[in-house]
């Protein structure tokens, strides 16, 4: 094989793959500017010259995408932060405090949670939030999201904290720090890289979560982006230009964040799944 071909062939194959990833987005983006379904059929990749933004205005007002977006954002952020902090506190107590036997048992007990696939608990959790009278409120998502992330978060943060040298805490305690002070002023700042990783894993998981969000929330104004978008699609079944506009709205913010933080995001999610 000539060298030139040898060099370009892998790129041809890989660029085909890249095209397979990007073309769907491109198609949706172009369709979102079209005026009718007929135009999508007759001229799928052409633009008619005038870029109509009417679809964007219409989708925004009809679908309340801003509401869904905000709901998703604050639910994912708040439950991820609370989850990360709880996990960090627990990991601190388990790895740095001197209750070794108890810690061992509690650690094993929490890790059992990772064996249980989330779907399996779905019905019982539904009953639980119904009995707690929080069905159809954001609590019904906040609590299971926060709790659901705990086993993996504790595992990852504890693994990181174990590696912090003992001398550091001995010195701090000599200087008069309490256990809480040690946690807040010394251990927590040192653990930030692990906390960021855990935050990213949990945030993306919650941001994209569909099953619980779909069945625990039926009030339109409380819906998150994944379920809100499905509802929107179902009410505008064949109005493809509007549906495409909705897709563009829901995908763009994530892609922008991804463009800036890709290294950290990739590192975070892959680390989470391999160690998990």
């Amino acid at each position, binding site marked *: 094989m000539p060298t030139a071909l040898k060099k370009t062939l892998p790129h041809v194959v890989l660029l085909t793959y890249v095209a397979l990833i990007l073309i769907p987005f491109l198609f949706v983006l172009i369709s979102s500017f079209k005026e009718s379904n007929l135009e999508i059929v007759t001229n799928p990749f052409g633009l008619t010259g005038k870029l109509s933004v009417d679809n964007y205005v219409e989708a925004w007002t009809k679908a309340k995408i801003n509401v869904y977006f905000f709901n998703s954002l604050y639910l994912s952020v708040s439950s991820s932060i609370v989850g990360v902090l709880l996990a960090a506190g627990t990991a601190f107590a388990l790895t740095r405090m001197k209750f070794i036997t108890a810690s061992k048992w509690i650690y094993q007990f929490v890790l059992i949670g990772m064996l249980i*696939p989330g779907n399996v608990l779905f019905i019982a959790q539904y*009953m639980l939030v119904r009995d707690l009278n929080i069905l159809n409120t954001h609590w019904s998502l906040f609590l299971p999201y926060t709790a659901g992330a705990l086993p993996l978060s504790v595992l990852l943060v504890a693994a990181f904290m174990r590696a912090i040298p003992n001398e550091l805490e001995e010195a701090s305690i000599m200087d008069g720090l309490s256990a809480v002070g040690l946690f807040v002023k010394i251990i927590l700042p040192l653990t930030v890289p692990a906390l960021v990783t855990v935050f990213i894993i949990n945030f993306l998981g919650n941001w994209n979560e569909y099953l619980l969000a779909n069945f625990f929330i039926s009030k339109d104004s409380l819906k998150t982006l994944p379920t809100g978008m*499905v509802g929107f699609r179902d009410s505008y079944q064949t109005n493809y230009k509007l549906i495409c506009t909705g897709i563009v709205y829901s995908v763009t913010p994530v892609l922008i964040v991804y463009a800036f933080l890709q290294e950290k995001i990739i590192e975070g999610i892959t680390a989470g799944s391999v160690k998990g």
Partner: protein
Amino acid sequence: MKNTLRNPYVYLMFIVPTLVLYFLFFIYPMLQSVYYGFTDWNGLDEKNFVGFENFVTAFSDEVFRQSIWNNVIFILFSVFIQVPLIIFFAILISNVTKLQGLYKTTVFMPSILSTSVIGILWGFLYEPEEGIINGFLGLFGVPDIYWLAEEKWAMLAILITNAWQWMGFFIVLILAAILAVPREINEAAGIDGATAFQRAWYLTVPLIKPIISVVVMLSIAGAMKVVDIVLVMTDGGPINSTEVMASYMVHESISNGKYGYGTALSIIIFAFALVLTALYQLTIGRNQERIEY
């Protein structure tokens, strides 16, 4: 000074909130599930204990058997079609120097998007008239296919969408392992006259075996818990042909009010997951010696 880290109140303060949440949303529902699974509860009336009836019903239930089979198809498709492709693409990306970053970032992208949005997006691509897939196949004279409405195509359509979403994630996972292998090994083999294919097959693949087995495991776990994409794209239809275990459990419990039966199904799913994990640990997972370069 030792007493600082022996303060039981501080210890409890750090531990208790986590344990309470964990107990409430993991352990308690798990115990409840086991209990509900043996009753005929419909969510409203009294629960009656029915023994193993739900479990017996489940295995003679045509639709549930179909959904077990669909999960098996998901597993087979991931392990025998996706995993080889994933390894192939990861090796390909590891061998190029130009554009490597672009390939990595692009293929990973779908895995950060919400499954439900991807389901909607692909639903549009599969549209018989407006979608580009039929448009593309039409160029070769293939007549319009009703991807999501025909029994024989719907499952394939979902499998393709699922592969599109997750392959890049695993490619990046394997790519990281390949790039961690010292370059010299590959270069030495190249100097000794090994072709690119030989190097990939006799060097790279054996060296990254541990991560490949992790990918197989994660694929199986993913195939067992697949549900969102089915609910969004076909909702189990047409005529239950794409129903998977988890979606059938949701339909039976929430939509049909058979909570007792639904939880029995969820226990079966859990049991399958445990058996698969154990089987894996006893076979592939067991001989995982650490590879030293």
